[in-house]
């Protein structure tokens, strides 16, 4: 199968006996071998395990046993997911000294139960405290559409692997935008589900209040297939909802008559470049209404404080014992986080509840809200400042300004990739719905994809193999 084959195409071919899962996996391993040194996507390749799993799938097909909806589909996970017998480094040097994981993360197990084949672990910003995809220990993940540019982070390797055609599916985490920002820079579809929807069990945490896990893909159908495979209650994650699975893939093409879609105004309209991309999507959806998310700037600020404080508390012992072993960019923020006044953190958590109540009221009048994923296209790797609204500002601190208020209150988002005519780089748009309405996000994303408004190709130079 070519690098551009979708998960759905691979699964159909494997299930129908037209191609062996082993052949699919061997081809993907060859692509990784060839392109990963350029992309910096994989930090661990689990080839032996992958070939064993592929043989298992081929055995099921031969025996007429259902091999699962993702039969033979290669995937990989951000290196904060536990993989049995692999050390979960979470982008750090320090955690490399831990023993290998005793068992897989819940979401890895669920993907494999659906027939998918794990190919390895992916690069990420240290301890996920990152919007760039840069990593001082492993080197940066590189944007397949322009190798001198950032993938975005912290799920940078997860985006590079899919946009570079190494695998059709990957998993990442999103605490403040860490699926949606890389999806924007690398031109991919990404899903940040509702907070509490997917199990986080046996993934290395960062901010318990805000951590989410979710998939990246090059098609909405693949995104939905992966999401559906991973749904279901898991008592090992105390934050997870007991809500029953609500499958989406079979309903993607269902018409959504009378769907009310609005564009987020005010705070979210602060970047002309981003607004041009939102405008293309809004026009296609005939979304003419604007809604204001009240106190969005304060919500983003509160997410910033909760992140800093909870992250610092998580790493306090390591900050005491070995501060020099951290990435300096991460360390100084975490050290500052250790001494934030408790009143700021408590107030931020109260604001979270109040902001949630205000935003949920908006959904009485609309079914989905559009907002940009990032204020700009992918910056150069190492770039420290950029122009925001005519003012030169730090890049790292501002890439998440549009994603943070949304994950702060755990709303589901499908990130969709938008390319303007004649442009070489994409910029993503968030399709945001009320809690538990991932189906609406995905159906709108599918409609945009079908209309040719959004597309997620394998990057040039990585496509035809």
């Amino acid at each position: 199968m070519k690098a551009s084959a979708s998960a759905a195409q691979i699964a159909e071919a494997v299930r129908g006996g037209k191609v062996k899962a082993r052949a699919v996996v061997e081809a993907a391993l060859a692509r990784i071998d060839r392109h990963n040194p350029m992309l910096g996507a994989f930090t661990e390749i689990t080839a032996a395990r992958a070939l064993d799993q592929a043989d298992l799938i081929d055995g099921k097909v031969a025996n007429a046993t259902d091999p699962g909806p993702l039969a033979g589909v290669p995937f990989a996970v951000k290196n904060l997911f536990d993989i049995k017998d692999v050390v979960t480094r979470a982008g750090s040097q320090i955690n490399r000294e831990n023993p290998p994981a005793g068992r897989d993360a819940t979401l890895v197990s669920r993907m494999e139960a659906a027939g998918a084949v794990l190919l390895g672990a992916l690069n990420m910003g240290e301890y996920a405290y990152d919007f760039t995809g840069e990593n001082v220990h492993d080197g940066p993940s590189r944007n397949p559409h322009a190798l001198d540019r950032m993938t975005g982070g912290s799920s940078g390797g997860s985006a590079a692997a899919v946009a570079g055609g190494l695998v059709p599916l990957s998993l990442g985490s999103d605490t403040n935008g860490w699926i949606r920002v890389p999806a924007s820079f690398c031109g991919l579809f990404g899903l940040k589900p509702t907070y509490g929807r997917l199990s986080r069990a046996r993934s290395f945490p960062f901010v318990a209040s805000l951590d989410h896990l979710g998939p990246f893909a090059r098609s909405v159908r693949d995104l939905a297939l992966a999401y559906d495979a991973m749904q279901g209650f898991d008592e090992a994650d105390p934050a997870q909802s007991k809500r029953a699975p609500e499958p989406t893939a079979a309903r993607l093409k269902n018409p959504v008559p009378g769907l009310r879609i609005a564009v987020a105004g005010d705070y979210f309209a602060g970047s002309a470049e981003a607004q041009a991309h939102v405008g293309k999507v809004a026009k296609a959806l005939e979304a003419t209404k604007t809604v204001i998310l009240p106190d969005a700037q304060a919500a983003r600020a509160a997410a910033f404080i909760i992140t800093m404080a909870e992250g610092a508390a998580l790493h306090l012992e390591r900050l005491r014992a070995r501060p020099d072993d951290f990435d300096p960019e991460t360390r100084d923020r975490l050290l500052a986080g250790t001494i934030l006044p408790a009143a700021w953190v408590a107030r931020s958590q109260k604001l979270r509840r109040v902001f949630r109540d205000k935003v949920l009221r908006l959904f009485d009048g609309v079914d989905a809200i559009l907002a940009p994923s990032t204020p700009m296209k992918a910056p150069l790797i190492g770039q420290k400042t950029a122009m925001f609204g005519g003012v030169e500002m730090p890049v790292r601190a501002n890439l998440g300004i549009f994603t943070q208020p949304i994950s702060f209150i755990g709303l589901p988002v499908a990130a969709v990739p938008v390319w303007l005519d004649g442009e070489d780089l994409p910029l993503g748009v968030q399709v945001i719905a009320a809690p538990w309405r991932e189906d609406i996000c995905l159906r709108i994303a599918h409609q945009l994809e079908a209309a040719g408004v959004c597309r997620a190709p394998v990057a040039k130079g990585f496509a035809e193999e």
Partner: protein
Amino acid sequence: MAYKPFDADALIDASAPLLQLRIAPEHRAGIKLNLKTASKMAALVEQVKLEDDAEPAPVYRP
């Protein structure tokens, strides 16, 4: 609360012993920069009026 400049060195010097943190001289500038950013964020958070009975978001379910 509006943002007001503050003595970040004094805050670091007072807090680090309480937390048993050793602050290397070369880490100090980065910590100060981040504290300044955080205090600006806190000022934004405080500009939203909250009632006394506003519940924080995480609710413990026994």
